């Protein structure tokens, strides 16, 4: 049930500051920072598709929710 994008959502939710792609990569043990960015994009698309009230924004190359 706990998919990578669910974990990412929790990370962004629990962090008080923007989370860097490299940090997402490290925590989720992804192969590259690009994979982390792709996952962020995936989550963003899901948010949009489900008309969720949250949105993910990027701040200075980092991502935050």
């Amino acid at each position, binding site marked *: 049930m*706990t998919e990578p994008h669910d*974990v990412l959502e*929790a990370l962004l939710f*629990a962090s008080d500051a923007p*989370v860097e792609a490299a940090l997402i990569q490290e*925590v989720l043990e992804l192969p590259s920072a690009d994979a982390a960015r792709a996952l962020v994009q995936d989550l963003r698309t899901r948010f949009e598709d489900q008309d969720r009230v949250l949105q993910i924004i990027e701040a200075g190359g980092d991502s935050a929710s």
Partner: protein
Amino acid sequence: MTRPEVAPWLVKLARSKTKSRLSRPALETLAIIAYRQPVSRPEVDAARGVNSEGVLDNLLERRLVRIAGRKDSAGRPFLYETTREFLVAFGLRDLGDLPKVDGELVLVDPGAAAETAIGDADSADTARADATDAARAAADPVIAEAVVTDAAVAGPASAELTERAVETGTSPLPPIRISKILAQRGLSSRRGAEALLGAGRVRINGAIRREPGAQADPEGDVITVDGRPLPPIAAHRYVLLHKPRGYVTSRRDPEGRPVVIDLLPSGTERLFPVGRLDFDAEGLLLLTNDGELGNRLLHPRYEIPRVYEVQVERQVLAEDLPRWRRGAVLPDGPAVPRAVRIIRGDGRRGRADDVARGHVCRGALSRGQALLQGSGPSGAAPPARPVRPPAAREPAGRELPRAHGARAGGLNNLRGPDDSPILHRIR
């Protein structure tokens, strides 16, 4: 709330963040301040056995600690205390929430510190060990765990501390920031020094250095500005100036208007105004070649509010205050006062704390309320020509502390809403 099953990843997130955030020396220093606040740097140094200046700057920059005032002892060192951000970062409700540590955190009296270091290495070690314990205890569980992990990798914590102390001891003059060196020599403010660096006017051993954080050894390296060697360290001078209207608070005005430096007796050494009063404002201004003091008073990092006492032409009523408190947008950005209040019953005098920009009087002007000159009855016509000296003089006795509560913690009855000192007075 997040669901429990994602907890492992969140723990991982918290760990990697805190590890990169606070170094062990920073945590140690923070813990000493947390448990012994308000505390001065010599006391922190004595407890840690190493110089804590850089670490303290770092903590100030992160707003985990702030300057609480000055200690009434030799040299009047700054006292440090923890901030609300510190409580938030460590998940504490208040200081009473700090974990209790067994044993006393011994702070060696800095006056006796040198003696102790030579004569009684044991007690210094104890103090350090205590400080390390406190550092661990003060951190929340996740951070404490991170510290322990680090220590396990790096070997016994005490061994590492001793090593570091020895290292510091053998290097007599660590390089310091060039901006600081230039400020010490009275060449410019720290910020001005960064501009000099950026303009490529500073050379170290013949090579141009541009980066603002560039460091040098003031004794060993040859530092030149515009090809000229640095002047010797200037004796610090402080001048209190009653700035009249019609003068620019600057050393030079591109438009050729009179500047406050013109008011100083000829032959006065190179002094910089600390803070500024606007062209149309008059009031007390401090000038000095003490770049360090200037930096301490002005850099937003230290959060020293500038408090202005302003007299305005039109009566200010209590119901006008919300508008005043909203601040004003000035040509160089918004200026929002931290607090505004009326201090005289006739409603003509207001006081404003402005930490972001010291342009409260322009804020007043932009509301169409011209500043009045002097403290006399309203409508007193300003003199056509500015007041000449004795407008400028050196502060006498305790006056410097008076003009700058930040320097001494004096001025008991003239304090801002959060116990902040008054810097400028515009009458």
